[in-house]
């Protein structure tokens, strides 16, 4: 039986259970998404976009899914505490209502996706799946087939959130488990918000998290999205982020993979109005046999938009990194500025990095550049430090830490920036805290 077959059988047998707890809106596209998934099948390495990452083995595990929406108890303390934020939790793919939900400014809505689809159907219908629906990836179709809940955030016109929103994603289960979770973030004209999403795993089982996030940023709106992954070695994390930006909007995305198993992040940004700007950064720290794959696509669909991209990887032991950065400049997208930089450090001869920048440009009055480098630690700098009495181990640490500094600079929440500095340093020293109950990554 092919890997897809088990999911096809699963849907056919259990679609009634799957649809029962969900709003009509979430159920509406399911059959069509299922058909799409069945015809596509999971991507293999013969698919150009998945050349460096074979997802097959991850999907062939016999995962449990929580179709009947059983409540799973969880006690957790996030590594990024004391950020003064509006705090929310998604456990696997369920939005958890806490005892005392934060008090939000007038008009702002933050709740579970299923709840939002039931309470605000017109609002959700206006945006849900508008970007992701156009996508051809099997994992996105799979998500649409099995989605039951997730996170919903709506900021109305002109409202600026004074505090960041912190979303803690926890994978919790006693058996191998898969979650298809969905986030929907809407910022209307002139709105301002910051979202920090941290992903954790709490049990020593195999997890697969297949998450789709859609973000709609209205004209003149401003959005910062920080993602921190700190999961264990037996986790497969597939994230698909779709961002649609209107004119003069400003978006900052910073994806940091601190600790993981196999991660595949797909990011697609559509710059649909003139003057839109996006700063897309990311950092991956990998060792042992970890694998991090960032696949980005920035569509300059109109003129006068700016995109800056900065991704850095530090790979140790036999870790594998991949970065594919595509920039598409549409015909007529004059005065485009698209700059992409990918710098990678392989600290051992067995670490591997595959970098593939791509530019597809159909306008002629543009400024586009891409630069990708893969290097080792600077021997001259190492000797200089040793000549001052610093041990080899400490000197390498200082250099690795220095290497990631500029990505961390692109965090506009000071408390978060300081916290990330500390976590990254601990990670390099091998001192990163693991969530209670996680014994795999010792």
């Amino acid at each position: 039986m092919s890997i897809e077959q088990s999911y096809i059988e699963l849907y056919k047998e259990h679609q009634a259970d799957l649809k029962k707890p969900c709003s009509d809106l979430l159920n509406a596209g399911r059959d069509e998404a299922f058909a799409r998934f069945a015809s596509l099948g999971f991507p293999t390495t013969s698919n150009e976009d998945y050349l460096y990452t074979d997802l097959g083995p991850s999907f062939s595990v016999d995962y449990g899914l929580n179709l009947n929406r059983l409540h799973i108890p969880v006690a957790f303390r996030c590594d990024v505490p004391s950020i003064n934020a509006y705090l929310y939790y998604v456990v696997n793919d369920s939005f958890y209502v806490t005892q005392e939900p934060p008090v939000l400014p007038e008009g702002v809505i933050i709740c579970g996706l299923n709840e939002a689809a039931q309470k605000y159907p017109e609002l959700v219908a206006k945006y849900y799946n508008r970007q992701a629906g156009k996508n051809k990836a099997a994992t996105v179709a799979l998500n649409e087939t099995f989605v039951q809940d997730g996170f919903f955030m709506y900021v109305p016109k002109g409202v600026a959130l004074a505090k960041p929103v912190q979303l803690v994603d926890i994978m919790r289960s006693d058996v191998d488990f898969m979650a298809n979770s969905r986030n929907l973030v809407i910022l209307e004209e002139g709105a301002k918000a910051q979202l920090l999403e941290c992903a954790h795993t709490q049990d020593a089982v195999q997890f697969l998290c297949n998450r789709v996030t859609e973000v709609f940023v209205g004209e003149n709106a401003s959005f910062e999205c920080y993602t921190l992954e700190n999961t264990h070695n037996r986790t497969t994390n597939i994230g698909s982020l779709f961002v649609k930006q209107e004119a003069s909007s400003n978006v900052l995305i910073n994806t940091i993979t601190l600790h993981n198993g196999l991660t595949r992040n797909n990011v697609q940004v559509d710059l649909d109005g003139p003057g839109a700007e996006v700063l897309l950064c990311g950092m991956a720290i990998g060792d042992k046999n970890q694998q991090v794959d960032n696949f980005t696509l920035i569509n300059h669909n109109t003129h006068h938009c700016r995109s800056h991209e900065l991704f850095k990887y530090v790979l140790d032991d036999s870790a594998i990194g991949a970065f594919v950065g595509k920039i598409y400049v549409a015909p007529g997208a004059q005065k485009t500025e698209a700059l992409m930089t990918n710098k990678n450090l392989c600290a051992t001869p067995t670490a591997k990095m595959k970098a593939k920048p791509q530019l597809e440009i159909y306008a002629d009055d543009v400024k586009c550049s891409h630069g990708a480098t893969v290097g080792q630690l600077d021997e001259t700098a190492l000797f200089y430090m040793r000549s001052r009495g610093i041990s080899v181990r400490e000197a390498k640490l200082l250099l690795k830490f220095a290497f990631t500094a500029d990505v961390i600079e692109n965090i506009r929440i000071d408390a978060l920036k300081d916290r990330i500095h500390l976590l990254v340093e601990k990670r390099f020293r091998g001192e990163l805290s693991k969530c209670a109950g996680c014994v795999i990554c010792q």
Partner: protein
Amino acid sequence: MLTIKNLHANINGKEILRGIDLQVNEGEIHAIMGPNGSGKSTLSAVLTGNPLFTVTEGEVIFNGKNLLELAPEDRSREGIFLSFQYPVEIPGVSMTNFMRSAINEHRKYKGFDPISASDFLKLMREKKDLVELDNKLASRSVNEGFSGGEKKRNEIFQMAMLDPKLSILDETDSGLDIDALRIVANGVNKLRTDRNACIVITHYQRLLDYIKPDIVHVLYKGRIVKTAGPELALELEERGYDWIKQEVDAQ
């Protein structure tokens, strides 16, 4: 303090040091001069344990220990300091983190606890004044964006922070104008005690006007070919190196 006997060293198979003998005692300042390619920088590299060079023969004893057996970081912790001719830039590593790591590793080696934050800041402030480095020094990355003069002054600053027994100044005067030279030399002189020692490696007599040596050696073709008092430096300034080269080549 330092005894070098018959030291031979090469790089990529090419022999540079061909039998160096040198004795440096506490309280002494030795100048090593010589034409280009004589092996002056190689000597400092070998003494500090630069992995690019291979020692093929000879021994180096530092305060009773076999120096050649020690890793570069241990040589530093034993009390050897090299002021590099071309200090490397290390973007992203702040002077604070760099110096604190170095000082704490030295302390750990000697069985002490790490330095307290306030003591460290006090030390930094004290020592940077010695070489007139600016206040923003602490937050700057190591040597990044430093002018030539600042880099050399930063070397002496690090020397002041680490308080070595034997300091080696490798062409510290190269690329410096008179003012920078004066500041650097002043710093070195202030750090001088009768318990430590210094090897000043230089091309030109000029630095030696400020840092007055007790003994002057001439290094030529990988060997020390002449040793005398400070008047030798003056003679070299007047006559150049040709007369020495002729003397040696004739033998």
